[in-house]
């Protein structure tokens, strides 16, 4: 609940900054404002995947059931942010590059990320035994992790239409080619998406726990008084 409220407040501030505070870009005009949703969504799509793979790995190593449940709870939100990154990228690419889509390294590897999320969810729901499902989908999540650095470094490794990163972490600080207010707006929007993900994933994992533990006595005691 707290994360949800924090996310809503940050989203309101971030959207206000995106449209009213951040200045018009000298090169891209108003169109660059898509960045404030595109970049946080793309960052989240990669971050959520790494976190999901870590939970999956923890579940496979220590056989902790909650870890696998956290992994499956994060997958739909990760897939959603991947889709938003691709969608907003297409709508940004059309006016700036003249193309909705190009098969270059950055775009293609991000599309593969979407397929990895979908594959993870499909594999998990296809296997009835939850422990075998967690093991199979966890393995897929772990193999897929190699795709994340490929996405991240694709703009450096290959010639691409996609622009390089505007924010770089150099030793001792953050360096950016953008104006300071644009960086701040980007950060606020990123934290909003971050809190959103935590809120949604925690709510979803509570449902998953209840479903899996439906026959235990603690669920029985918890729900004895619930309204029908």
């Amino acid at each position, binding site marked *: 609940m707290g994360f*949800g409220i924090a996310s809503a407040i940050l989203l309101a501030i971030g*959207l206000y900054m995106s449209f009213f505070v951040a200045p*018009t870009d000298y090169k891209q*005009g*108003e*169109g660059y*404002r*898509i960045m404030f*949703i*595109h970049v946080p*969504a793309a960052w989240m799509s990669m971050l959520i995947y790494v976190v999901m793979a870590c939970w999956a790995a923890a579940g496979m190593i220590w056989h902790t059931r909650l870890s696998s449940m956290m992994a499956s709870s994060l997958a*739909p*939100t990760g897939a*959603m942010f991947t*889709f*938003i990154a691709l*969608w*907003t990228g297409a*709508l*940004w690419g*059309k*006016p700036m590059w003249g193309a909705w889509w190009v098969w270059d390294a950055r775009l293609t590897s991000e599309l593969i990320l979407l397929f990895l999320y979908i594959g993870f969810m499909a594999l998990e729901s296809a296997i009835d035994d939850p422990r075998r499902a967690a093991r199979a989908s966890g393995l897929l999540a772990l193999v897929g992790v190699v795709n994340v650095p490929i996405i991240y470094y694709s703009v450096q490794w290959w010639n691409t239409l996609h622009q390089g990163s505007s924010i770089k972490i150099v030793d001792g600080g953050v360096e950016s080619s953008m104006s300071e207010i644009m960086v701040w707006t980007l950060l606020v929007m990123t934290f909003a998406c971050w809190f*959103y993900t935590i809120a*949604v994933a925690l*709510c*979803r994992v*509570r*449902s998953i726990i*209840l*479903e899996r533990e*439906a026959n235990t006595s603690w*669920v*029985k005691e918890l*729900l*004895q008084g*619930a*309204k*029908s």
Partner: protein
Amino acid sequence: MSEWFAMGGHGLYIWGSYGVAALYMIVEVILVVRRRRSLVQRLGRMIRMKAHADLEVPK
């Protein structure tokens, strides 16, 4: 006002981006909350039915 919405000719692209992102995020929140609510209701009903059945058929 309409000039602001036009976003210097990029209005369709910008609102298309933010609109779809907002739609997806709102729908996801609704789905997650609804899943939890209906689950709590269903499990609660099942548990109470079981308790009733246990009362009626003493072992």
